[in-house]
């Protein structure tokens, strides 16, 4: 059975590198540096799960990406984990308002490896290899 694919969207290349190292033994992992690249990657191949950073090219780019993903029927059902170094839940609550991010999990950086793997597995299942 083919391994599930994960798309990492984060502008922190070092962090992405480390995350790929963590996830690649069990999943197929691709990465994107910003929203534009992310949509290009999704168009190319629909991932089974997306891990999305909030602060990329601008403070709340991740929120905009998440909102677009949820609006599009094609990508609506892709499980979404939001990851952030800044506690945006607190900082942007007012700005985001009714369109508050519809993600499946919200994890804060630095995220524990165990926690992340558990969340990923909870959303797309344990890989059968």
């Amino acid at each position, binding site marked *: 059975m083919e391994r599930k694919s994960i798309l990492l969207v984060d502008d*922190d290349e*070092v962090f992405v590198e*480390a995350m790929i*190292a*963590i996830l690649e033994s069990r999943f197929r992992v691709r990465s994107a540096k910003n929203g534009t690249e992310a949509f290009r990657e999704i168009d190319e191949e629909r991932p089974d799960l997306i891990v999305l950073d909030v602060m990329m*090219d601008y403070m709340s*780019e991740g929120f905009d990406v998440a909102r677009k993903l949820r609006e599009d029927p094609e990508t609506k059902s892709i499980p979404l984990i939001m990851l952030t*170094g800044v*506690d945006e839940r607190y900082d942007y609550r007012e700005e985001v308002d009714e369109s508050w991010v519809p993600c499946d999990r919200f994890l804060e950086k630095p995220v524990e*490896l165990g926690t992340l793997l558990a969340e990923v597995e909870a959303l797309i299942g344990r890989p059968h290899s």
Partner: protein
Amino acid sequence: MTANRFSYIFGPELYGRLLWFGRLRWLAVCGLALGALLGPWLGFGGVWPSLVVIASVVALYNLFFQGLLHHSRQAGRSFTNLRAVAMFLMVMDLAALMVTTHFTGGLQSPLLPFFAFHMALGTVMLAGRSMYLLAGGVSLGALALLLLEARGRIEFHPMIAGGTLDVSTGSLNLLTLVAALFGIVYLTDSVASRLKSRSIELLEATEALSDRTETLQRLLSELEDLERRKSHYMRISAHQLRSPLGTIKTTLRVLVERIVDPSTKRGRKLLDGALEVTDSLLAIVNDLLDLAKIREGRDRAPWSRGVNLNQLLADLFDSLATEAAERQVKMIPDFEGVAVLDWGVPPALVHAFENLIYNGIKYSLAERPLTVELRTVDESAVIKIIDQGIGIPEAFLDRVFLEFVRAPNAKQHAAEGTGLGLAIVKEVVEAHGGTVSVESPGQEGSTFTVRLPLRHTPSEAQRLLRAGNDRGYGAETHRWA
């Protein structure tokens, strides 16, 4: 004058008293009616029809004025001439009382004390000279009544049937009445006016107090605002540090747990990455420290006399030449005249202009010129750093000087940058009494304009001057002057 200032308070008070007086008047009406009813039974011969007439007249005008007052209050209009109404009512009351007196034994009437009673009430209501006038009027009226009755010009109505006119008792009563009237007006007036001036003092004190309370409240809310901004700044700073720390931790974790072997090429790459992030972390910490130093240590800053900006900028051109060459940016100095600040902190100014010029180089496009213009206009040095780089989106123009604000295109163009450089520039320029602004017309490059007043003398420098203590920074002064 003071009384007028508070007429908005005393107006309603007089109004209330008039209404209250009106209610008392109904008692008088009842008393008169009762007198008329009981009079014949008690042996007051022939008096009762007159009392009924007086009671009716009093009842009529009382009804009229009470209605008028109520109506004007309901209509929300302030009664324009309350004092005139009060005066008129007093005169009417006194006249009615005089007529009643006439029908109840003239100057031997047991109702005479009611004049004193009326005067006391009237003085509380209408303090001052008008009451002495009324007292005079009543005295004259009583005198006329006595004289007319004594001479038989008008008929004497004894209180008790069969009573006779006793001129000497009447005269004595008249004297007592006059003394009582004036005495009561005097006493009541002095007490009432003292009370009134007290309440004016009280009102003034209350007003002053409420002014002060407002000032305090404003200061308090400003302080709270400052505190909030401070804690916001601290939180943002901490978060800015946490993000790279998170990356470093995750990377180290991957290596420590041997998910990637550190000795492999990939492990090496991760280590290099972590080192890079550590550098950026250090840069943020350094900038934060600089910013804090400028903010806290203004009074300890090394203020020097005669800071030559031409020299300072020329030195920066030299020290930034390598960076400019690396990015193929052509730096062009365009200095007209010589700008020397009376007072300045050279290291801080170097830091600020270095940030601006370095930004110009960093966000410029290859082969484009970066012009640094220096002019002296109206006792101010105007320095413009003009690049033809990526520009700044309009939405960010007024925010770029805030801590940790970086426009998206800046981040894409040059990943490194702490987001604190322009905050430092603003802080330094403002410490020198100057301003800094930015334009980016159509997002085709940006122009940062710094205005520094040449004659600005900061209070710290003045203190140094007074203390004759500016020698300590002489060495630096020479370097820049």
